[in-house]
Structures are given as structure tokens and as C-alpha cells.
């Protein structure tokens, strides 16, 4: 055992239980650095080891292994049915694995210790529709063992974090879709867990409400919370996540930062997007003959150098294809997914 003397005070957190845990742990294993407490022997927030889960004939998760480091935001990016939600539910201890293991801060995922460290906002609106926002938070806080002053403090924090203070006493069924989503997230974080699972938190909300949710996630990250964020919107993963795991057919087919993934898939190449006129009939065949694809009337090509665009335009003119717009851009996660699977994220 490493015994390191502690310098500093007990953090002044409103949640006494959490503070006590942190303090005791730090007393035994930690040191305080300029950026906060560093736990030298602390287990990583999440370790997923060769997890397999089948539902009858369907293999929802086919041997996923992942490590998630402290304070990281990991994006699970993949189309509907890729296995993201099954993996999230497995981490939350709600699924019996066929094989493999999941550890949350070194504890089995379905253990009480792991559940205390874990917050989960499921994809569904898992709320009591006839209760107010405050009453929902109160109930879920009590389910997490919070009482009295700690509970009141947690509710206040959640309402402020979700920007719902002025609607706290409105019943859930009377809230807008975006507000319900925010409350759904807050209810999962009422006990201030160190690891948070957000399962497609922006499903069915308008762009303005989505931005508000992004701000909430960013606030969490700024506090040092480790976040697992599932989505099939690549722009969300790009904006919020340090590392991204691209999931397809129950497997992680690529893992890394956005830049790493793009570089691995495309090297220094760039995307050329070429919009054809509506009169063009054979755009797909023409694009395929030049190593490209066509989606919704837009040809996607990969070029090493921007000057190659001129060659593409010349060829299109020669073959009688009317091009009305051309864009050069660095490949994004959508391009990576397309490159890896041959289909779009939202197909």
C-alpha cells in the first residue's frame, strides 16, 4: 500500500457522502496536485473486457473491449441497432452478459459500489409523468440514498444544471420535449456520480434544445466527470468527445480521437463533394468508376491534393454530367464511418 501524506482541506461539496468517500480515499491513496486530487492507485472509471451479449439469434454486442480513463468523454458512435444501448445497459448493470466483464472503478458493474459511482440517463424518458420535475428528482435522489440537506442541495444543483429552476414545479407531462430530456439527464446524475452514461440524450429535440444539452455535457466535463456518450450524430461526437469508438454490428470497428480516426482512414486525403444537376441519371455509375459514391445527388470523392478537383470537373464535363456545386473539405466521422462500413451513419 502506498501511504502519501495529504496536503489541503476536505473539499467543500454539498454532498456529504461523496465528500467523505473522496476524502477517505485520498487519505489512503492520493495526493493533491495543482489540478486537483490525483489518485495514484485509483482504478480507471471503466474497463470493458471482451463483452458478449446475445438476444436469441441476435448478437447485440460481439466481444467489445474498452478502457475509459478518468475525466474522459468517450463517444459511442454508430447507427441505430449497432449495439450502443445494449453496451450502455450492460455498463449500468442491467444486462446479464453472456461472456466478458465490466468494471466500474474496479468494481463489477452490477455491484452496489459500482452503482453508487455510476449515473445513467437512458434513451427513454424514464420519469414519472404525473410528478413535477422537483418531485422526480426527489424520488430518484432518494432511490440513490440521498436524504435531507444533501438531497435538497442535489435537487437544486440538478435544476440549475438543467436550467429548469423556473419550471421545477411543473409536471413532467406539461414540459416541452427538450425540458423532459434535460430532466431525464438530471435525474440520472442526482447523486453526482463520477462516471456518467448518456444514451442518445438529444433524440427528438430541436436544435436549440440540443445546444442546451451540449452545454450541460460540457459543464459536466469541466467538473471532471467521466462521460460515455452514445449518439448517431457525428457532429455531437465531434463536439463533445475526446475519443470516439465507432460501433457497428456489436463491435468497435475504430477507436481514437477524431483526428486519429480520420488520419487512419484517409491519411492526408480530403473529401470532394460534387453536387450533380437533377437531370443527371448515371451519376452513381460515373462516381463509382472514379472511386467515389453518390448520396442524395451528391458525389463523394477522396483526393490527395486539391488540384485533383480540376481533373474530376473535366471528366464530368467530358461525360456530359452537369455539376452545379463543388466543395473541398477534410473528412469527418461520417466519412470515416462510410469508409469503414460502406454505408452512412443514419442508414
Amino acid at each position, binding site marked *: 500500500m502506498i501511504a502519501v501524506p495529504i496536503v489541503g482541506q476536505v473539499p467543500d461539496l454539498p454532498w456529504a457522502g461523496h465528500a467523505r468517500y473522496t476524502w477517505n480515499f485520498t487519505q489512503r491513496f492520493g495526493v493533491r496536485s495543482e489540478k486537483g486530487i490525483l489518485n495514484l492507485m485509483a482504478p480507471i472509471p471503466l474497463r470493458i473486457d471482451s463483452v458478449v451479449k446475445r*438476444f436469441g439469434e441476435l448478437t447485440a454486442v460481439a466481444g467489445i473491449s474498452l478502457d475509459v480513463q478518468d475525466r474522459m468523454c468517450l463517444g459511442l458512435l454508430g447507427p441505430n441497432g449497432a449495439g450502443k444501448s445494449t453496451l450502455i*445497459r450492460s455498463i*449500468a*448493470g*442491467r*444486462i*446479464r452478459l453472456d461472456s466478458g466483464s465490466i468494471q466500474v472503478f474496479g468494481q463489477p458493474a*452490477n455491484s*452496489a459500489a459500482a*452503482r*453508487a459511482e*455510476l449515473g*445513467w440517463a*437512458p*434513451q*427513454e*424518458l*424514464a*420519469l*414519472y*409523468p404525473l410528478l413535477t420535475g422537483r418531485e422526480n428528482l426527489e424520488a*430518484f435522489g432518494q*432511490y*440513490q*440514498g440521498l436524504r435531507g440537506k444533501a438531497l435538497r442541495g442535489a435537487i437544486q444543483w440538478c435544476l440549475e444544471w438543467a436550467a429548469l429552476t423556473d419550471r421545477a414545479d411543473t409536471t413532467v407531462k406539461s414540459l416541452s420535449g427538450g425540458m423532459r430530456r434535460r430532466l431525464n439527464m438530471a*435525474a*440520472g446524475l442526482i*447523486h453526482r456520480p463520477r462516471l456518467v452514461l448518456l444514451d442518445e440524450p438529444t433524440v427528438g429535440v430541436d436544435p436549440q434544445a440540443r445546444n442546451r444539452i451540449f452545454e450541460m455535457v460540457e459543464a459536466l466535463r469541466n467538473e471532471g466527470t467521466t462521460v460515455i456518450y452514445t449518439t448517431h450524430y457525428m457532429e455531437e461526437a465531434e463536439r463533445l468527445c475526446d475519443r470516439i469508438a465507432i460501433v457497428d454490428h456489436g463491435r468497435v470497428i475504430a477507436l481514437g480521437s477524431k483526428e486519429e480516426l480520420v488520419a487512419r482512414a484517409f491519411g492526408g486525403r480530403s473529401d470532394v463533394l460534387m453536387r450533380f444537376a437533377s437531370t443527371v441519371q448515371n451519376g452513381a455509375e460515373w462516381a463509382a468508376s472514379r472511386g467515389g459514391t453518390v448520396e442524395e445527388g451528391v458525389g463523394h470523392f477522396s483526393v490527395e491534393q486539391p488540384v485533383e478537383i480540376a481533373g474530376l470537373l473535366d471528366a464530368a464535363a467530358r461525360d456530359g454530367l452537369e455539376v452545379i456545386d463543388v466543395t473541398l473539405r477534410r473528412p469527418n466521422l461520417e466519412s470515416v464511418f462510410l469508409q469503414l462500413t460502406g454505408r452512412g451513419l443514419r442508414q
Partner: protein
Amino acid sequence: MIAVIVRTGFKALRRDRGAFLLAFILPIAFFSIFAVVMGGMGSSSTARVSVLVVDEDGSAVSGRLVRGLRREPSLAAATRPATKKGQPVPPDYTAASAEAAVKQGVAPAALIIPKGFGANPVAFGPGTGRKPIRILHDSSDPVAAQVVAGLLQKVVMTSLPDTMAGEGMKYFDQASGGLTPRQRQDMESNLSKFRDQMERRDQEGSAPAADGSNNAGGMVAVDMRDVVGENKRSPMVAFSAAGIGVMFLLFTASASAGSLLNEAECGALDRILSARVGMTTLLAGKMTYCTLLAFLQLTLMFLWGAAVFHLELFTHLPGFLAMTAATSFAVASFGMLLATVSRTRGQQAAISTLLILTMSAIGGSMFPRFLMPEAMKTAGLFTFNAWAIDGYTKVFWRDEPVSHLAPQVAVLIGSGMVLFLIARRFARKWEYA
């Protein structure tokens, strides 16, 4: 186009098992229950009226009457309590023990043949110093006393024909005095009085057996007395409150427990179980909520009965509390079981409607169990309704002490615990996917 609409409707109905159940199974189930209760399964299954018979006279005439009563197929006449296995034969009922037995609900009526009955058993008119046969009855079963009184007259006619003939000759001698004009005039005069009396009774529309007065106009004089409900202010309210209350309690418990299915469908159950709450704790919490809700519902119903229908609630509080707690626990467990067995809320609603209405029909919530054939009375014992109604009857009707509620409370609590354990077993489907 209409054909498409019809076809679509039938396709949807075929796949909606709940609606299918309600559309076809429930009506057939109810039809069968009502048909059995009304005797549709043959006369052999018609309910016999239990009557306790006490022969204080001990004469040859009274002995023949007792034997006639025991032979009567519509009566189940007993002169002594049933012998228990390995126990000595119990003594015959006395007037006091028969009255106590009626008060305890052993039988709805007791028939006491008084000392001296054999000397002057029947008469074709009022008066004449006959000793009336006493019928002690429990007016919670208003049919039984009437049936016993009517069948008594029938049994006298069939079992004592010589006595009737002798009495007829005596009456003839007394009334006519031979065939002299004066005697003929007297006889006509007496017969006229007798007819007048019969007509007067018919015009008053009061059946002597029902109003409790002396049945002096019959061949056998009968004195009827309600030994259970004579001092009750509003005798039937407790039955209604218990019967209807339990039926609606079952519906409420089913709906409340169904919130589990709502929570499962919206994901709240997953979230709760991913917190510090285990499935057993969750079910126990739901069960407690359903029990308290049922308790409040029954209490409100009985308070209303006390305020509006003069139900004697406050003089029976201990028994009421014991029965209400046990009944609430039992119906809550029933709701929990239904919620955990069902896969969807729709399925749960269909199953609960079918089961609750059936249980209420055979358990006595819709019509009294004393009207039912023996087989159905026995089937009723498999319902919470029957045990609850029996318990409330003991409390409010028979004024029995709380200790006498032990069988009802034990059955309700015991079966509630068993149902809860089964529900816990079924709830495993929600613990992990």
C-alpha cells in the same frame, strides 16, 4: 372498402389478446356463473337450506315431524352438530345451542318443536291453544326462513296425514255438531270466519313468515324470530360495503400495481433498479402503497356507510381494522401478481377484468353466496371476496369478537404472502435482460 375495414378490425382483434379475452371469454364465463347460480345445471345442484332442528317435545308426533323434515329434499336438517373425526358424537341441539349456532352462522335458521306440541299439533284455524313451533333465523339470509316456514307446513301435511285427519274430524264435530240446521249454520259461520281471516291476510300482503308474527293461520302455528339482526339499525349495509368494496379494491389494486408495467415500459424501472434499490425492496414498496391505498378506500367506504346508512362502524372498530388490514394486504398482493405476470399494461387490464369479475361473481360480491349451489359455494372459498365478506359479516352482523376472525385473517394474510412470493419470482424478468 367496408370489407377492408371489417377485415382490418378482425385482424387487430385476433392479435389483441386482451380485447379477444374480453369479447369472448368473459361473457361466456359470466353466463356460466349466472347459469349455475340460477340452477341451470340441474335441480340436483340447487342449494338446500340448512336448518337446525330441536325436538323439545320428544313425542311420537314430533319425532315423525323431525324425520319428515330430514327426508325433505329441499332442507338439510340437522339435530346435532356434525361429528368430527375421532371425536365422540356431540349432543343434540338445545334451543339455546341452536340459537347460538344460528348467531354464529352455522345455519340460517333453527326450528324448535316445543314441549306439548304433540298433544295438539295442527289446527284448521286460529286459536285452539296450539303450541307454536319457533323458527329462529338470521335475516342476513332472508330466503332461508321463508323456505323453512313454508316447507314445515308441507312436511306436516306429508308426514302427519292421520293427525291432520283426526284434527279435521275434531274440527268438523266442533264446528258442525252434526247435520242439524243449527250445526250447519255454525259450521258455515266458522268457515266464513276462517275464510275472512285468510282474505284479510292476503289483502294485508304480509307473509307471516316474513314479518316475524305468529303464523297462527297455518296448520302448524309458527313463531318466527330474527335472532341476529333484530337489533340492527341497517342490517344489509355491511354486506354491501364489504361485497362491493372488495370488488373495487381488487380493481384499484390491479391498477396501482400496474404502474410497475408503466415504469418498465418507460425505462423508469431500469433506472430505479440501477440505483440502490433491489427488486424485493421495490416490490415491497409497491405492495405497501397498494395495501395502504386499499385500506384507505375501504375505510372511506365504511365511513360513508356509517354516516349515511347507519352502519355501526365505531362499535366494531377492532374487527373492522383487522379485516380491513388483512383484506387490503390480500388484494394488494393479487395486484402485484397480476402486474408481474403480465407483459404489457393492456394484457394486465384484460386479465384483471376477467379474474376480478369472476372472483366477485363466485365470491359473493354480486349476489349472496347462500343462494349458490354447494359446488359454487366451495369454489367461492378460492376467492378473496368470500373470505373478506365472511369476516365482515362476523364483525358487523354477528358481533363476534376479533379472535373469531382468525380463519379469515389467516387465509387472507397467508394467501397474500404466497401471492407476493410468486410475484417476486415473476419479477425476476425485470432484474436483468
